[in-house]
Structures are given as structure tokens and as C-alpha cells.
């Protein structure tokens, strides 16, 4: 560590005022503060002396994402070998997934941070740590077969148009990672829907098993929900889907970390589940009895388990920047996300997965929800006075 410190110190004058690389100071500063706790305070933004700063908040979320990442890697391998009917060890499954997922993570981080560095240097402000989370979220919500250049493109799109254009971390109104996914979803639908969820790179000496189907559970939705995998498979995550979304169990570990550390709002997570179950039960009630395969018949708790609802509710909806800020607003925001997710899943055949779009839509509604809540508070206080 001492060698690194000395190296950084010897380089420091070049990046300071009047140095050769003065323009690159923000980039240097970000690296230095990443390696060592700085002895000075930040120059802009809010100053509160607390053990909890942006870096630590972001790092907590990254830690909370690790279980889904590890499970996702294993599941990528598991689905791959299952499609070829091969029985391999746990480690082999994991290593296969590791080599498939790691490039996506690296590209996402490298490109996104590159854009952030560029902007920081151009605008001369400090690099903030917001991208640490976004950069990990993007790979987790993409299918494993996504071409790397698309990952790069979406990372550029979301950092540029989702964040930097509004002034950087904390200034945006939409969740950047979801924006990246929505961008890919609308721009390259062929790579985001269909038989893309399992890595089918050929295995010498093995052919695809006959029973293989590239469909996720969501596809069975419009046909017949009874064709879905078992509830326990859906809970543990032995199903196809985006890299990080499949295992509700791994996501619950993350949710526990987020709630225990106070980084994620338990109100939003609970409200999402309440809205989802409420709307699911309501649709069960009014479902047409003469069509037993109608998607409205899907048991409400299935909605909790399939697709990326759990992932979205825990990691995306709780994004403190794009969510509603007021406490009452958080409940409304969450309930609307849950309810709207079910509506989109059931009634919109074009998008079997409603979580992404319903969170984005509620990001749009969040400011007005906050406004209404605040206006209401003002009114009741005035009445009391």
C-alpha cells in the first residue's frame, strides 16, 4: 500500500494547478479517493459529516447485488448445460457463467466510467460514484447472449442521456440502468426477446435436448400459466431469464442487506409487493370463468416470483434519486408500480415483462406524486393552524 501511496504522491503535482495534466485532475482525483480516504472535504454538493457518504451508499448496493451476480453466473452455466442435457459439477457451471458474464460486466463498467471520466474532465467537476451501481445493474438485467457492443452502446446512452445531461449523479429523473435496458429493448428487439435467454454456444459431442425450449416463464403467460416451472424453481431461480433476475432467494438476501443498512427504502419494496398482490387478486376475482387459460387466472403470488419483479422492486424502484422523495409518496409510488406491472403483464401482449416499463413510467409520475403529497401537507397544516 505504501508503494501505491508514494506513486500517487509523486504523480500528484502533475495533476494539480499549473501541472502538465491539470485538465485530467478529476480523473486523477477519482482514482486517488477510490484508493485512499481523502483528508479534505468535497467541493460541491451537500456537506454532511457522516460515516455514510455517497461512496459507501453505492458500495452497499454493490454488495447487495453480489448474491444475484454469483447466482446469475451459476445459472448461466446451469441453463447452458441443461440445454445440452449434460450433468456437470457446481464449479463447472459457475465457471462457464463466469466467463460469459464477466466480459459484459467489464464492458459496462469500462464504457460507462469512460463517459463519466470524459464528462468530469470536460466540465471540471469531481467524478461521483453513481456509476458503480448502474454499471453492475446493466449486466444483471440483460440476457447473457447480448453482443458486447450493445452493452457498450446502452452504457453510453444511459450515462449520457440518462444522467450526465442532467448534471450527473443525483440529478436524473429516470433510473439510468433501466433506461439502458429500455433503450436496447426498443432499439434492438430481436436481441432482447425470443430464444436468447440461454447461451447455446455449441458443446462438442452434444446436441440440444429435445425438450429444450427457449421460452421464459413469462411467455407461457398468455397461453397457459400452468405450463410454468414449479414454484420452488421460480423461487430459487432455476429458470431462464436475464442474468441477475431469476433467483428470488438471492434477491431477498440483497433486500435484507439494503433494508438493514437503511440504503433501500423498505416502504417502496413493501408497497410494490402490496400493489402487485392487490392487483393480482383483483384480476383473479374478475377473471372470465369460461376461459381457464386466461392470464387473469394466474395466482397473484406467481407474479412475485416470475420475471424480474423482485429484482426491479428491490434494486430499481428503491433508487433514491428517481423514486418519490416524500414518505407518503413512496407508498403511492410503490403500489402503482406493483399494480401497473400486473396490468402490463396481463393485458399487454407486446411486452410480457411489465416491470421495466412500469418503473420507468412511475419515475415519470414520481415528481407529481411528491408535489401532490406536499400540497396536501401544506393544506392540512394550514387548516390546523
Amino acid at each position, binding site marked *: 500500500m505504501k508503494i501505491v501511496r508514494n506513486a500517487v504522491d509523486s504523480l500528484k503535482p502533475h495533476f494539480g494547478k499549473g501541472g502538465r495534466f491539470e485538465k485530467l485532475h478529476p480523473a486523477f482525483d477519482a482514482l486517488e479517493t477510490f484508493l485512499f480516504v481523502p483528508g479534505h472535504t468535497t467541493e460541491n454538493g451537500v456537506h454532511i459529516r457522516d460515516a455514510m457518504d455517497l461512496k459507501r451508499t453505492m458500495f452497499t448496493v454493490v454488495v447487495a447485488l453480489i448474491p444475484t451476480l454469483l447466482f446469475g453466473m451459476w445459472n448461466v452455466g446451469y441453463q447452458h448445460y441443461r440445454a445440452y442435457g449434460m450433468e456437470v459439477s457446481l464449479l463447472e457451471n459457475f465457471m462457464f457463467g463466469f466467463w460469459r458474464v464477466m466480459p459484459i460486466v467489464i464492458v459496462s463498467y469500462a464504457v460507462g466510467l469512460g463517459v463519466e471520466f470524459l464528462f468530469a474532465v470536460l466540465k471540471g467537476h469531481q467524478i461521483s460514484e453513481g456509476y458503480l451501481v448502474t454499471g453492475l445493474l446493466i449486466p444483471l438485467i440483460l440476457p447473457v447472449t447480448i453482443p458486447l457492443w450493445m452493452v457498450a452502446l446502452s452504457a453510453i446512452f444511459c450515462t449520457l442521456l440518462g444522467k450526465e*445531461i*442532467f448534471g450527473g449523479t443525483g*440529478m436524473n429523473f429516470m433510473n439510468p440502468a433501466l433506461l439502458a435496458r429500455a433503450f436496447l429493448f426498443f432499439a434492438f428487439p430481436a436481441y432482447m426477446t425470443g430464444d436468447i435467454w440461454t447461451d447455446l454456444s455449441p458443446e462438442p459431442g452434444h446436441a440440444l435436448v429435445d425438450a429444450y425450449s427457449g421460452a421464459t416463464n413469462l411467455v407461457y403467460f398468455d397461453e397457459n400459466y400452468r405450463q410454468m416451472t414449479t414454484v420452488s424453481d421460480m423461487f430459487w431461480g432455476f429458470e431462464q431469464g436475464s442474468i441477475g433476475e431469476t433467483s428470488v432467494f438471492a434477491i431477498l438476501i440483497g433486500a435484507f442487506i439494503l433494508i438493514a443498512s437503511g440504503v433501500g427504502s423498505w416502504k417502496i419494496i413493501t408497497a410494490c409487493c402490496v400493489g402487485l398482490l392487490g392487483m393480482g387478486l383483483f384480476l383473479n376475482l374478475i377473471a372470465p370463468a369460461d376461459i381457464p387459460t386466461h392470464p387473469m387466472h394466474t395466482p397473484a403470488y406467481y407474479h412475485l416470483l416470475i420475471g424480474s419483479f423482485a429484482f426491479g422492486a428491490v434494486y430499481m424502484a428503491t433508487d433514491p434519486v428517481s423514486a418519490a422523495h416524500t414518505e407518503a409518496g413512496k407508498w403511492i409510488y410503490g403500489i402503482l408500480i406493483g399494480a401497473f406491472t400486473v396490468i402490463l403483464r396481463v393485458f399487454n401482449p*407486446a411486452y410480457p415483462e411489465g416491470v421495466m416499463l412500469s418503473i420507468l413510467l412511475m419515475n415519470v409520475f414520481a415528481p407529481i406524486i411528491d408535489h401532490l403529497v406536499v400540497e396536501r401537507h401544506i393544506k392540512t397544516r394550514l387548516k390546523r393552524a
Partner: protein
Amino acid sequence: MENLINLFIKAVFIENVIFAFFLGMCSFLAVSKKIKTAFGLGLAVIFVMVLTTPLNYFILNYMLQEGALTWIHPSLASVDLTFLAFILFIAVIAGAVQLVEMVMEKSLPSLYISLGIFLPLITVNCSILGTSLFMQEREYGFVETAVFSLGSGTGFFLAIVLLAGIRERLQYSNIPAPLQGLGIAMIITALMGMAFLSFSGIKL
């Protein structure tokens, strides 16, 4: 009844005048800096729309269309005045806007001042003329026209209030200087349109 509810929902969300047709962008972008004024303009647009579209419906069906004038004399059945639709529609809209302006100046002077030139400009708000023309093109009946105009107006109202909410939240954001104002509003509109795409596959 179900048909009418579907028509309303379709006009508000699925075929939103702003996000699906990009009509009425000028006032949408210009008067969305504050929620309060956006709210006022949205209401004014709803009012003008609900007033003018059914009026235009009557004009179209009892004066302009081929055979519409038979109520005066059967010999007029072959007269087709549809080419006058544009100009008459706009005249009706202008009249209705005058009415709104007079009422607002009298009862809500603060809102009247803050809306400024954009209140009379509702006259040329494309979303209002657009709604009338959609009514003509899709051959709605009277009740359908009334519901559709209310839905269309509500869609505009929703869009402009949402945009104003976001812009108020972004007031303290560090937006690059060249993009401040209209530039960022257009980018926000595009991103909002992306979120509203979630409705685009729903069939009612």
C-alpha cells in the same frame, strides 16, 4: 358503455396526443416550467377541447358533409362542403378560446397573466384541431366524440403536468448551459415518450 371507457383510456394513455402523435408541442414545451401554470393551461385545453370538438361534430354533420344539408331542403343533398372543414373548425376553436380568455381574465387574473400569450395561442394548438380532425377521420358518433375529446384533453393535461413536475424537480440540477430550457425539455419529452411506450401494445 365498455366501448366508451376503452375509447377514453385509449385517448388518455395509449394514443396520447403528445407522446403518440406529437401534437401541441409548442405550448407543451413552453408552459411547463411550473406545475401551477401547466395545471391551468391543461384545464383550459380540456375545456376548449370538450367544447369545440362536439360543436365541430355538429357543424360537420349538419352543414359540411355530403347530404348534411338535407334538413334545409332535399335538393341540397348533393352539396359537399367538407373542404371548408379546416377553416370552420379553426373559427370555432378561436371563438371558444376567446370565451375562455374572457372568463379567465375576470375570475383568475393571476393565472391569466402567467399564461400570457399562450392562452390565445391555444387557438392554434395543434392538439385541439387534431382532435377535431381525428373525429372527422374516424367517423365517431356524437357520444363517442364527446368522450374522445375529454380523453384527448385529459391526455394533454396529464402530459403537461407530468413534464412540469419533472422540470420543477430538475430546477436545481446542473444542466449544461447550452441545453438549459427548451433543449432539456425536449430530451425529457423523449424519455417520457419512451416510458409511455409501455402502453403501445395494449389492445382495447
